């Protein structure tokens, strides 16, 4: 009996140890990544290529989902607002919810599952097929050559994608509200402009999406680099990327929101 309890405690300690070790490695990995970034920027083409893979190829899903989110917001917002006779405030509702929250968060979640997972899979497979080791043997630093460009590609793409998502969503809200339902167009835009502030709403949204971009890209490259080099290990790493990115985005969103919009 006593032996089993001791074993259980030892197992728990082992797990905590593992997690802490992984966290420490993640921190060391981030420092290495930033350290070798300069080296990878000297071959900027590598980063541009990653912006293509994580940004340009995500365009379609981002634009289409942005449009649909805007359409739904328009319908639901109108449904509620017209009960209180203030359907002109539809523009405000759509624009504020998109620029402050939905734009960065939903774009971040889509980005994590569209681009983050593929980055993890790519790096994980390179590790499984020993390409990273081979590079090391040829005195090519895999972090500078493979990891850093993918990280920066994601960090650059994410704010742009979130801005497109918000813009597309507002267009969707306009489409439903003004074109289909017939809310007054002038009131829609002027009320929106009167209550959306550039610094307080738009810029804070951009800052959020930038932070999410860093978080998602870091998680994606780290999970790939740290994956167990087997087929199963890579698939687990991809799952972890999507799950951890989603958690990180939502948790960071709460923290950032409580800093940015407290008491206003």
């Amino acid at each position: 009996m006593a032996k089993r309890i001791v074993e259980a405690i030892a197992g728990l300690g082992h797990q905590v140890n593992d997690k802490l070790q992984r966290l420490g490695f993640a921190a060391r990995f981030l420092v290495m990544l930033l350290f070798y970034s300069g080296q990878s920027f000297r071959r900027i083409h590598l980063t541009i290529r990653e912006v293509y893979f994580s940004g340009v190829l995500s365009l379609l899903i981002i634009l289409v989902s942005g449009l649909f989110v805007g359409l739904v917001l328009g319908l639901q917002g109108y449904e509620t607002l017209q009960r209180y006779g203030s359907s002109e405030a539809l523009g405000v509702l759509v624009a504020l919810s998109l620029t402050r929250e939905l734009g960065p968060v939903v774009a971040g979640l889509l980005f994590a599952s569209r681009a983050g997972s593929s980055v993890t899979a790519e790096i994980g497979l390179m590790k499984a097929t020993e390409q990273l080791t081979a590079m090391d043997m040829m005195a090519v630093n895999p972090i500078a050559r493979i990891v850093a460009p993918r990280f920066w590609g994601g960090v650059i793409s994410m704010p742009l994608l979130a801005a497109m998502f918000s813009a597309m969503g507002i267009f969707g809200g306009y489409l439903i509200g003004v074109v289909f339902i017939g809310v007054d167009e002038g009131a829609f835009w002027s009320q929106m402009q009167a209550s959306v502030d550039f610094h307080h709403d738009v810029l804070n949204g951009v800052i959020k999406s930038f932070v999410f971009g860093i978080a998602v890209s870091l998680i994606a490259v780290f999970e790939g680099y740290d994956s167990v080099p087997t087929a199963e290990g890579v698939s687990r790493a991809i799952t972890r990327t999507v799950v951890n990115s989603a958690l990180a985005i939502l948790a960071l969103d709460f923290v950032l929101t409580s800093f940015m919009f407290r008491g206003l």
Partner: protein
Amino acid sequence: MNRKLLDLWVGFFVAIGIAALLFLALKVGNLSASNFLETYPLAAKFDNIGGLKVRGPVKSAGVVVGRVSDIRFDPKTYEAVVTLSIDARYQFPKDTFASILTSGLLGEQYVGLDAGGDERVLKTGDVIVKTQSAVVLEKLISQFMFNKASEGPDKK
């Protein structure tokens, strides 16, 4: 994929992203409209500011001429000291009347400035003397009820 085509696509992507940001800044936000380049501060003391907030608008004749930049409590006079940043293009006479008004029945509160007839104008840091506090709905209702009650039942 060859390098030129790739660069073209990435350039296209970045251009759309920046266009979206500009759309958010100019069409959705109010970057173009309400940025006063140069402002000067004025102070006004109110007995009660109601629900006035920092960054609330300051309007004269319905036109936004400035913003509320600071709200403090003066522990000596027990009044609220509101600092207003007024657009430098507009000058107001010394006897300008400042009141706290509400846009619509339940809208946001703003500071309304009614210009007086004085020749001299308010300068940086001046205090607006003539002010009117916010209307507090509860006080208004209780006053009304009190008046009704004091009229007595016999005067029906």
